[in-house]
């Protein structure tokens, strides 16, 4: 019988006043591969960091090898690899694997790259990566670097590895290679926890998948019970019988003319596999079309951070009337000031502050103010990265806009808040409309 490696019970974790984990349970056996899937804000990264000892929870217990574990013990037993994790460029691959071996350092002082090279070559050969032994780290693809880091857990005496969103930019071939590496590492009795926001190919091969939502575990699916449809149902919150369409990643809406647009209504577009349709218009190239468009990155990228809110708005107004900004800046400010404070709810003090100092909700208010001249506004997953509180406030602002809104999202629950119509996408077109 395989021994239990880790068991977490009733984990509660709050950050910046937002509850990230709410009585979360989690358990894993030695050598087990577990996928943890949940939408943005579900608590995946918080759980990954707590399991790896990077953060401590305020309530709940974590048992490691049937003993209550501290953060330090978890840190020593586990290893966290996220999308930003890389090998160290100034060291060779051998040194990256063995030179930073904390356990070896505690037992001996001397280290020789030459002696350890053979050991490393053998180890990497087992995983089909021996050709990278003499490659400069900077030249090694990121996916291979992640795999080497995963392999290094073997020599570092780790008991489990947490992979947090590492494969989002991987190609299919890279994902397959990762699956193989994970299964080989698991054979060495090291558990691998794979945290992911969308359904990925890797999940199919894992021993168990935990679906989490709003900081709680909602379902545990074993390998032989796995089906993308059921998993989708648990993650996005609807049953497989209700909507049984499948949209491939990369499908796009090429033209919104085909959608019936009614005045003063909210139209929601939902892509069931978690991928989002690409929109061809955005706030800067829609001169001929009376549609405004914005996504989550527009809250940050479409503004000059070290310029005040009012100057940012004045500048965009200035672009519209094609005049030079500085000579008419004062006049533009006077025009916008009262209107902006009334519409966005920001104080006069806030609108004279640098844009970078605004929080996400305030940025959203300003963005909607900028777009409010449009008849229709399309938002593509505007709440991505927002926490629960911010999300609620953004949706509240959206509902108060009294505009025709097309809201594109992969989060069914979020869409349900609007209480109007949903158009599920299927292979780039809308087959039917659905009343909530």
């Amino acid at each position, binding site marked *: 019988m395989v021994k239990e490696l880790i068991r977490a019970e009733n984990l509660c974790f709050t950050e910046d006043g937002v509850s990230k984990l709410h009585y979360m349970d989690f358990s894993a056996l030695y050598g087990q591969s577990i996928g943890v899937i949940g939408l943005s804000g579900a608590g995946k990264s918080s759980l990954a960091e707590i399991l790896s000892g990077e953060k401590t929870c305020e309530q709940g217990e974590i048992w490691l090898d049937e003993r209550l574990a501290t953060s330090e013990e978890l840190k*020593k037993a586990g*290893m*966290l*690899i996220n999308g930003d*994790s*890389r*090998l*160290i*460029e*100034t*060291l060779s691959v051998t*040194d*990256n694997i063995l*030179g*930073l*071996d*904390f*356990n*070896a*350092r505690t037992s*001996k*002082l*001397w*280290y*020789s*790259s030459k002696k350890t090279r053979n050991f490393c070559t053998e180890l990497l050969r087992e995983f089909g990566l021996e050709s990278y032994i003499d490659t400069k780290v900077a030249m090694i693809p990121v996916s291979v670097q992640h795999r080497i880091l995963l392999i*290094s857990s073997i020599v*570092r005496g780790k008991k489990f590895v947490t992979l947090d969103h590492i494969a989002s930019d991987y190609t299919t071939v890279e994902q397959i290679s990762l699956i193989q590496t994970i299964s080989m590492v698991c054979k060495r009795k090291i558990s691998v926890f794979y945290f992911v926001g969308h359904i990925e190919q890797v999940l199919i091969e894992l021993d168990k998948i935990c679906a989490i939502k709003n900081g709680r575990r909602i379902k545990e699916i074993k390998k032989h019970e796995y089906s993308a449809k059921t998993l989708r149902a648990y993650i996005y919150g609807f049953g497989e019988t209700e909507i049984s369409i499948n949209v491939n990643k990369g499908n796009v809406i090429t033209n919104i003319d085909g959608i019936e647009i009614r005045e003063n209504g909210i139209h929601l577009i939902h892509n069931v596999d978690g991928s989002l349709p690409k929109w061809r218009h955005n706030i800067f190239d829609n001169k001929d079309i009376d549609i405004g468009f914005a996504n989550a990155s527009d809250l940050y990228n479409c503004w000059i951070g070290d310029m005040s809110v009012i100057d940012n708005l004045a500048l965009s107004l200035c672009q519209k009337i094609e005049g030079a900004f500085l000579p008419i800046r004062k006049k533009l400010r006077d025009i916008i000031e009262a209107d902006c404070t009334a519409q966005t709810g920001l104080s006069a003090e806030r609108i004279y502050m640098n844009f970078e100092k605004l929080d996400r909700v305030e940025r959203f208010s300003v963005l909607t103010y900028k777009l409010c001249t449009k008849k229709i506004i399309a938002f593509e997953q505007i709440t991505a990265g927002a926490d629960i509180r911010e999300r609620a406030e953004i949706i509240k602002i959206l509902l108060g806009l009294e505009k025709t809104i097309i809201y594109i999202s992969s989060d069914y629950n979020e869409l349900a808040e609007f209480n109007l119509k949903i158009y599920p996408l299927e292979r780039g077109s809308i087959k039917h409309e659905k009343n909530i």
Partner: protein
Amino acid sequence: MRKTYDYMKIAVTIICIIIVYCTVPGFDNPSTYYHVLKNAAFNGILAFGMLFVLICGDIDFSVEAQFALYGILFAMFLKVGVGVILAIAITAVISIVIGNIQGAFIVKFKLSAMICTLSIGMMINGISYVIAKGQPIYNMPSVVDKIGTFKIFNLATPSLVLFLMLIISLMILHRTYWGKFFYAIGSNAVAAEKAGVPVARTKRLAFALCSFCCAISAVVYVCNLGLAPLESSRELNTSVLTIAALGGVSFSGGRGKVLRVFCASLVMSALTSILVALGVPNYYQSCIKGAILFSAILTNFIKT
């Protein structure tokens, strides 16, 4: 490509040595080269210490002050009758403690290494003046002279210590786990921490090693000169950083080789001797050294 570049460097060095040998007065005499080696020792040892800190991505501006303090302390211990070995040991222990404290402040409070070492350096400088009562310490015991004039194969004590420190530094950086940790932290501290490298302890060790090198250099200097001067360390920070830059050490951390720093210290010492032999005025010497430093940094930038 890399090999061609290395061969070119060796060829240029040989050509330079031949030109110097033929044209500069006194450089046809082997004793001049021993002299160059001896002069390179003081700054060279300090540069080895600075190398550890620079590889970690930090900097130590208290080298100058520490050098003066340890010289004064060593001389004071000898004057009060402490034996040479014990005096060296106490000075070394004090240096390690001071280095550790500096490192601890930088790590614990996340202070800028530059500001922290500058301010601690100012404090140490003041303490040196207080201890020495503003005067250099003369009339050292005869054993100091013996150490200063000791020679093996025409190599004076400073040269021997330089070679010893070269070997120790090489061993630490290339043959121990700590060496790998220095490079890892300088290159990517976050990744190193995730890999399990004890970042705080490693940084403290780097500063302790730097201070230890200051102590060794100061002891050698005092033994060679027969007195502990207070003013000897003027512009020492700049000289040490010049050697590091000339030796190709990256000031942003993660890169640097002991042998290159050793060669750089020899080049700087030789350059000083050549300029003196040619009778170049002091202020022109500064210009020339500055130009060499600038070209070294520029070459490093182009190379990377």
